[in-house]
């Protein structure tokens, strides 16, 4: 246990994760101490004899109560760490200086780019948590991906000390991601809070994510402090935004604080509102280190208690449910073990990713990973590349379809009527199924009204059904649609942006499943089916998908000594076809003394490549061809 201490870097133990949040804020000396010192830290908790709801960070959680008991590992083996810079006595924190009524746990929520992280920077500066310099930009966003994309992926915490009307307050700030894909992080953060600062851009007004985040806070019954940011901008229109807030959130204009986080205008007022409005809560926010060996032992939402002093467990969290699946393979099979270890480390850090080993005849051994959404997938992939220097082939994302079985034989086999289809090879035919189901989402689009026509057309093309349409002010409209999830997977967001000159925002939430007319499409090469290219598609989209796949294959399969027919089929019906013509001439024209070395090199490389090709019947298919068809297409 506590094996993390030796890995301490810069005065703060680092999980292979971003748990160094506090390190930047202020390195806490006690982490480097021996286990005995750690034990001392349980004291404030034990003296309070209160169950601490632990906001588990970085996906690192702690054994369930019964599990710990069974394993005979008393809680003493786990130490509670408070990452906050609390007053210390001989290097130790004295929590008793902060009676619970002087503690506030709060969060900042906002649509992307509305200034959440900038506000956090200012709050840290005002409270002296970090020195005030021009370099403080997105201090809490530590991952490269966060800084590059200007988004928060991992919730981060910081403790602020603030003297208000003669009383020292401890304010625990939890910086949360704004995007729906990370809403598990949001809800996990929010459940450790009693209040939120809801930041809205004075120029852009309420956007799709503002809506989603507001509802999360509202449903958690948290105190909401509406803040209108960027009032220094030329086009700022705080009155309009106040009206929107009033209309959509039923919060009065008077409650809104107009600020400029960039310039620091009115930020102090926000802190005071946090103290005034957010109710105190009997708890501390932080993380702890346990002697657990398996990530799977750690479940988000666990309740911890002192050894042999069981308590009533707190209500748990819903575990994150993967909505988007994609295959991940090493570019080179010799990299398999390195990639495996990189994925393991990263998932230690992000337990919401589900992993199943998978293997493809074309791409070799790999994994089928489940993500919470598309951004989650992108962020995961980017982190693998940036933080672990891994290069991977990521297949086009798919959604978990379901089938309600009618065949008694299949029901017996699966021991249930409703099965989830992740791999197209397992797609049951329509004769043994009473219906197929596809996952759907409730999507919210907020847009200036001049783009409504284009956006409605776009949504219809994506098989979406309109549920609602309201003007949130004179010129802005909020549209709600039920979308089949797979229709928004690949390029919907880009299309929406291009149809609205970048002004429309989009967010979505899970809305269950609906009946769908699904078919399995096969790809044939000279009549032989290519197993790894089988795809489950909606019948209405089969032709377009099939045609695109055939075209991509045509470009990727090299000419051979005979003609190659590439066909997309539904059952026995061919819906698309392309042809690769046979080679008529393939021989180097000049081959004399000086050309020989070069020619031999080229031929041997090609011969080596030929060995690696996969033979479908007599057709040789290079790995690149599979990659070009299976890979996520970043454009188009």
């Amino acid at each position, binding site marked *: 246990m506590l094996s993390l201490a030796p890995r301490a870097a810069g005065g703060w133990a680092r999980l292979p994760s971003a748990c160094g949040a506090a390190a930047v804020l202020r390195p806490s000396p006690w982490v480097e101490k021996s286990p005995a010192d750690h034990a001392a830290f349980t004291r404030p908790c034990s003296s309070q004899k209160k169950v601490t709801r632990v906001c588990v960070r970085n996906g690192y959680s702690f054994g369930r109560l019964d599990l710990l008991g069974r394993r005979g590992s008393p809680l003493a083996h786990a130490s509670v760490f408070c990452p906050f810079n609390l007053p210390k006595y001989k290097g130790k924190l004295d929590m008793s200086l902060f009676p619970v009524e002087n503690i506030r746990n709060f969060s900042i929520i906002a649509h992307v780019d509305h200034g959440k992280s900038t506000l956090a920077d200012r709050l840290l500066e005002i409270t002296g948590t970090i020195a005030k310099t021009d370099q403080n930009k997105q201090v809490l966003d530590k991952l490269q991906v966060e800084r590059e994309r200007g988004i928060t992926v991992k919730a981060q915490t910081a403790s602020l000390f603030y003297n208000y009307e003669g009383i020292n307050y401890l304010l625990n700030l939890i910086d949360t991601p704004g995007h729906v894909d990370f809403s598990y992080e949001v809800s996990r953060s929010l459940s450790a809070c009693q209040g939120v600062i809801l930041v809205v851009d004075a120029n852009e007004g309420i956007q799709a994510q503002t809506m989603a985040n507001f509802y999360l806070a509202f449903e958690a019954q948290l105190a909401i402090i509406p803040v209108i940011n960027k009032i220094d901008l030329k086009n700022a229109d705080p009155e309009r935004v106040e009206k929107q807030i009033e209309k959509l959130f039923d919060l009065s204009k008077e409650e809104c604080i107009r600020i400029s986080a960039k310039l620091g205008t009115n930020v102090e007022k926000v802190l005071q509102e946090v103290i005034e409005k957010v109710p105190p809560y009997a708890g501390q926010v932080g993380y702890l280190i346990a002697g657990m060996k398996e990530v799977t032992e750690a479940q988000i939402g666990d309740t911890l208690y002192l050894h042999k002093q069981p308590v009533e467990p707190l209500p748990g969290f819903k575990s994150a449910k993967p909505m988007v699946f994609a295959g991940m393979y090493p570019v080179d099979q010799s990299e398999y073990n390195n990639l495996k270890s990189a994925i393991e480390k990263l998932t230690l850090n992000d337990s919401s990713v589900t992993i199943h080993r998978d293997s493809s005849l074309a791409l070799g051994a790999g994994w089928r990973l489940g993500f919470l959404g598309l951004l989650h997938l992108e962020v995961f992939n980017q982190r693998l590349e940036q933080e672990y220097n891994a290069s991977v082939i990521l297949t086009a994302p798919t959604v978990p379809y379901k089938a309600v079985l009618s065949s008694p034989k299949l029901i017996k086999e699966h021991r249930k009527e409703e099965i989830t289809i992740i791999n197209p090879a397992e797609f049951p035919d329509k004769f043994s199924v009473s219906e197929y189901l596809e996952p759907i989402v409730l999507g919210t689009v907020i847009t200036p009204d001049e783009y409504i026509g284009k956006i409605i057309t776009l949504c219809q093309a994506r098989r979406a059904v309109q549920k609602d349409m309201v003007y949130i002010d004179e010129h802005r409209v909020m549209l709600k649609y039920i979308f089949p999830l797979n229709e928004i997977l690949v390029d919907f967001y880009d299309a929406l942006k291009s149809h609205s000159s970048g002004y429309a925002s989009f967010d979505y939430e899970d809305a269950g499943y609906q009946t769908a007319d699904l078919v399995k499409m096969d790809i044939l090469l000279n009549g032989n089916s290519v197993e790894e290219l089988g795809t489950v598609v909606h019948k209405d989209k089969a032709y377009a998908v099939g045609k695109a796949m055939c075209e991509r294959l045509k470009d990727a399969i090299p*000419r*051979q*000594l*005979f003609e190659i027919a590439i066909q997309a089929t539904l059952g026995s019906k061919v819906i698309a076809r392309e042809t690769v*013509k046979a*080679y*008529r*001439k*393939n*021989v*180097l*024209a*000049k*081959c*004399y*003394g*000086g050309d*020989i*070395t070069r*020619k*031999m090199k080229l*031929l*041997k490389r*090609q*011969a080596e490549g*030929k*060995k690696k090709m996969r033979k479908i019947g007599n057709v040789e298919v290079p790995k690149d061809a599979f990659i070009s068809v299976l890979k996520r297409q970043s454009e188009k």
Partner: protein
Amino acid sequence: MAAPGGWRARTGLAVALRSQRAARQQRTLQKPLPSEEPLRAALYVHWPYCQKRCSYCNFNKYIPRGLDEASMRSCLTQEARTLIQLSQVHRISSVFFGGGTPSLASPQTIAAVLETISRCAHLAADAEVTLEANPASAGASRLAEFRASGINRLSIGIQSLDDAELILLGRDHTAHEALGTLEEAKKLFPGRTSIDLIFGLPGQSVASWTKGLEELLQQCDDHVSLYQLTLERGTSLFRQVQQGSVPAPKQEVVAEMYEVAREMLRDTGYRQYEVSNFARNGALSAHNLSYWQGSQYIGIGPGAHGRFVPRAQGENLREARIQTLEPDSWMKEVQAFGHGTRKRAAQGELEVLEEVLVLGLRTDVGIAHQHWLQFAPSLSLWDVFGTSVEVKELEDQGLLLLDNRGLRCSWKGLAVLDSLLLTLLNQLQQSWADRTAHGT
């Protein structure tokens, strides 16, 4: 530059040497036995300079500024001496002056190199000595001087009979000039004049290609080389195609041009003895044939390649050698060390066999069993290819033949040889590995 009298004297010496060679030739007319193989080699001389850069050419060539031909000449002769001695060959079977534009070299330089070769090894009087000539630098009198200096075969870079195409190719001559050179060459080198043509040019049609070829076939001698244009990275034509300022040649059209040309030449009495080479009246290029037969060759001059066993160093393995590319550096090295070899790589038995396979199948006769056994005494063509299913498939498709004569391409197979070679190279590698594993 040497005084005119001086060079005439040397030319006289060259004539004398030729008659000496003719006398020796009587004793060695019979085909050399395999055991004589290490004792002979072909010799390639690279002249690295051109007057103008052609738009398609990525060869090792330079536009000279203040060329010191005397130094160049002494370096070429020095390197020839060094490398022939290193190889310990007794006989140089053929000489080829390529480039660059070797017809820009003075006949005196050509003579000097040939004289040196004759002093270091036996160069038969009728040994093939070819010069690549550019129509712009090969007037009648100059061609006669080359002949006097020891050249007995000419390869003229005609490339095209369409002036617009010649401009696209960046050539510095017109079609008319080219035909003039061809006429003169035929008089001076009857039966030993070859022409080079390029097809598959951007914008060229099958009809225009056929028309030009037909016209040339009425005027040409007994040897024709037809080269499909290869767009080489780094050339201006490559860039023009990349940028879309000229259209990329279409694969189907180029394949059609090749097929039509092969048939036309066959019908005119030419034998297609190699992928790009056609000859009638037995006028095959002995020098080039020796490459395709996997014989030894010595390369001298900047960037020249060679394949020979440096026996003077006690080596048994053949080496792939490359001389220093840049002429000035090459010259400095030759002056300092006697040669400008930049890279030497010993070739293993398998590597040599791979080259024998790849090169041999470019010829119409392919690889005879006896020929193969010279290089692989214990692994016959039957051993390697006789039981392979994939080779059988190629035979069944009418692309390849393995019979009592040996291994060769069919007429149809020759056009797609590079596809066949991938299967064959993998099969060779497999058989070689199996043989090594069984310790036979």
